[in-house]
C-alpha cells in the first residue's frame, strides 16, 4: 500500500530524514516512534506530498509521488501535528469545506458527512463553532476531516498530543477501529500508545529506522529474555543454583532483598516448576511476578546507545 525507497531530506548540510526505506501492506497500523526531532514529521510531510524530498521515491496505493503528487494526495487522509483547523467555521461547515477541496462528489457529500460525523462521534457538536470546542473534540474534527474522502491511507502526526487521559483513550479506540479498514501510519513519542494501537513499529532516530517489528518482537529481540521475579522465605544460599537447574531457565540473579530474578526462555513459563520446587524444598513462596521489559527500555536503549560514540558533525537536528 505504501512503498518508500531511500527517502531523504537534507536541510543545507543537515540530514533530517536519512534514507528511509520500507513497505506497508494494506490494512496495517504502523507506528513511527522516536524522540522529538527524529524526523518523523518531515518523513510524513514528504509522504503526503507537502515537502518535496531531497531524494528517494514514495508510492501510495500505486500512485507515484514524482509522477502525480496531486493524485497521491487523493489517496491520503492527513492529520498534521497540533490539528490545524479554522476556528471561525462550524464543524459541519469545516467538513463540507474539506469535502469540497478533497474532491468528494456532490452526490456522495451528505453520505460522507453523516458517516464521518457518526464515526468520530461529532453529532452533538456539528453546528458548533470550532474555536469553542475542547481539544478532544477538535482532534476528532481533524480526524473526520482526514476521513471525509474515504482515503485508503491515513497519516496521523502525533494524534494524541495535548489530550487528557480520557480523550486519549477515546482517540486511540477510534484509531484502532479505523485501522480495520484503512492503512494507518501514525507517529508518536508515547510508548504505550504504539503498544496498544500499532501492529508494527519503527523506531526512528536521527532520520533513520533503527528498529522495525511488532511491539512484542522488538521487546524480545532487543531486551532479551523475560524475567520472573521470585520472592522466597527461608530458602538460603542453595536457591539460585536449584532455580537455575529448572527447565527453560537461563540464569538467576539476586535482586533487591530476598528476591531472585529468574531469566527464562520466552516460550517457557517456569512458574509451575518454581512452585513445585518450593514445595519440595519447603521454602515459603512469597511472590512471583513476571517482569516484562517495556518498549520504553527498548526506546531508551536504541536512541541513546551511540551517544557514547562521538557523533558525526551535524547529525540529528530539530525538524
Amino acid at each position: 500500500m505504501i512503498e518508500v525507497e531511500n527517502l531523504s531530506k537534507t536541510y543545507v548540510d543537515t540530514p533530517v530524514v536519512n534514507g528511509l526505506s520500507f513497505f506497508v501492506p494494506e490494512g496495517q497500523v504502523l507506528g513511527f516512534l522516536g524522540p522529538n526531532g527524529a524526523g518523523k514529521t518531515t518523513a510524513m510531510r514528504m509522504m503526503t506530498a507537502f515537502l518535496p524530498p531531497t531524494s528517494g521515491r514514495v508510492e501510495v496505493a500505486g500512485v507515484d509521488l514524482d509522477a502525480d503528487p496531486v493524485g497521491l494526495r487523493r489517496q491520503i487522509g492527513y492529520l498534521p501535528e497540533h490539528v490545524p483547523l479554522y476556528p471561525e467555521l462550524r464543524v459541519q461547515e469545516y467538513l463540507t469545506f474539506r469535502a469540497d477541496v478533497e474532491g468528494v462528489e456532490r452526490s456522495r457529500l451528505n453520505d460522507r458527512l453523516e458517516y464521518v460525523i457518526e464515526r468520530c462521534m461529532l453529532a452533538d457538536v456539528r453546528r458548533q463553532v470550532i474555536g469553542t470546542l475542547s481539544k478532544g473534540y477538535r482532534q476528532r474534527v481533524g480526524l473526520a476531516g482526514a476521513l471525509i474522502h474515504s482515503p485508503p491511507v491515513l497519516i496521523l502526526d502525533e494524534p494524541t498530543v495535548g489530550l487528557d487521559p480520557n480523550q486519549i483513550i477515546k482517540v486511540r479506540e477510534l484509531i484502532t477501529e479505523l485501522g480495520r479498514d484503512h492503512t494507518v501510519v501514525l507517529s508518536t513519542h508515547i510508548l504505550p500508545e504504539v503498544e496498544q494501537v500499532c501492529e508494527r513499529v519503527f523506531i526512528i532516530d536521527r532520520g533513520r529506522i533503527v528498529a522495525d517489528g511488532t511491539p512484542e518482537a522488538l521487546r524480545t529481540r532487543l531486551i532479551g529474555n523475560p524475567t520472573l521475579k521470585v520472592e522466597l522465605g527461608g530458602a538460603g544460599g542453595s536457591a539460585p543454583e536449584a532455580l537455575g537447574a529448572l527447565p527453560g531457565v537461563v540464569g538467576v540473579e539476586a535482586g533487591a532483598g530476598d528476591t531472585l530474578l529468574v531469566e527464562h526462555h520466552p516460550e517457557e513459563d517456569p512458574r509451575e516448576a518454581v512452585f513445585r520446587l518450593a514445595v519440595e524444598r519447603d521454602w515459603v513462596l512469597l511472590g512471583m511476578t513476571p517482569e516484562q521489559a517495556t518498549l520504553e527500555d527498548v526506546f531508551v536503549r536504541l536512541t541513546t546507545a551511540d551517544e557514547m560514540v562521538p557523533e558525526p558533525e551535524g547529525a540529528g537536528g530539530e525538524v
Partner: protein
Amino acid sequence: MRAFTAIVRRELIAYFSSPLAYIVMAAFLLLQGALFALIVGYLSQPGQSSLSILQAFFGGTIFFWFFLVVAPLITMRLVAEERRSGTIEVLLTSPVTEAQVVLGKFSAALIFYLSLWAPTLIYVVMVQSQASVDWGAVAASYLGVALFGALFVSLGLFASTLTRNQIIAAVIAFTGLILLFGLPLLRGLLISSSTLGAVIDHADLWQHMSDFAKGVVDTRHLVYSLSLTGLFLFMSTKSLELAKWR
C-alpha cells in the same frame, strides 16, 4: 472549480465572522460619507462648477490614503494566518494546486473590497435626484475602483505569503503600496532623466484614477493595473510553493 469556490466561501466566512470587517466597513462609510457631504457642500456654492462631483470624489486624495491603510488590513490574514496556524498544511496536502488557493483567496478579498464600495452607489442615486449624472463616467469610476482594488489586493496577498506574522504582512503591503503610489510624487525630486520620467508618468496611479473619474477608460491604464495584478498573483503562487520550505 469546486475547490476554488470552497476556498472563496471559507475566506468570506472568515471575513464576516471577524469584527475587523465591520469596523473597516463602518470607518469606510463614515469617511466616504463625510467626504461626500463636504464635496456636495463645496460644489453647491456658486461658481464652483468646473469640477464634476465624480472627479472630486474619486480623484480626491482620501480615496488613496484610506486604501493605503485598509488594503493591507484586508489582505494581511490571507496566507500568513494559515501558515501560523498550520492549516496551510491541510490545504496543500489536499488535491488542490497553489494557483487555485491563490485565486480563491484573491477573489474573496476582492469581493470583500467591492462590498465596501457597494453602499456608495447610494450617493450616485442621491446626486441623480438633484442633478444630472453622467452614467458613463460613473461606470468608468467604478471600473477604476475595481481595478485598483485588484491591484491592492494582489499586492497585499503577495505580502501575506511572505511571512507567518500578520502585522509583518501588513507592513510589507503598506510599504509596497506607498512605493507604488509615491513614485510619481518623487519624480520631480529625484529623477532628472526625461525618459525615465516619462515612464514614471505613465505609472502615475493618481492620474489614472482621475482619468477614470472623467469617464476616460484608457487602455494603457487597464493594461498597467491588470498586468501588475497578474504579476503579483503569479509571485504569490510561487511564494506559496516556497512557503512550505520555510
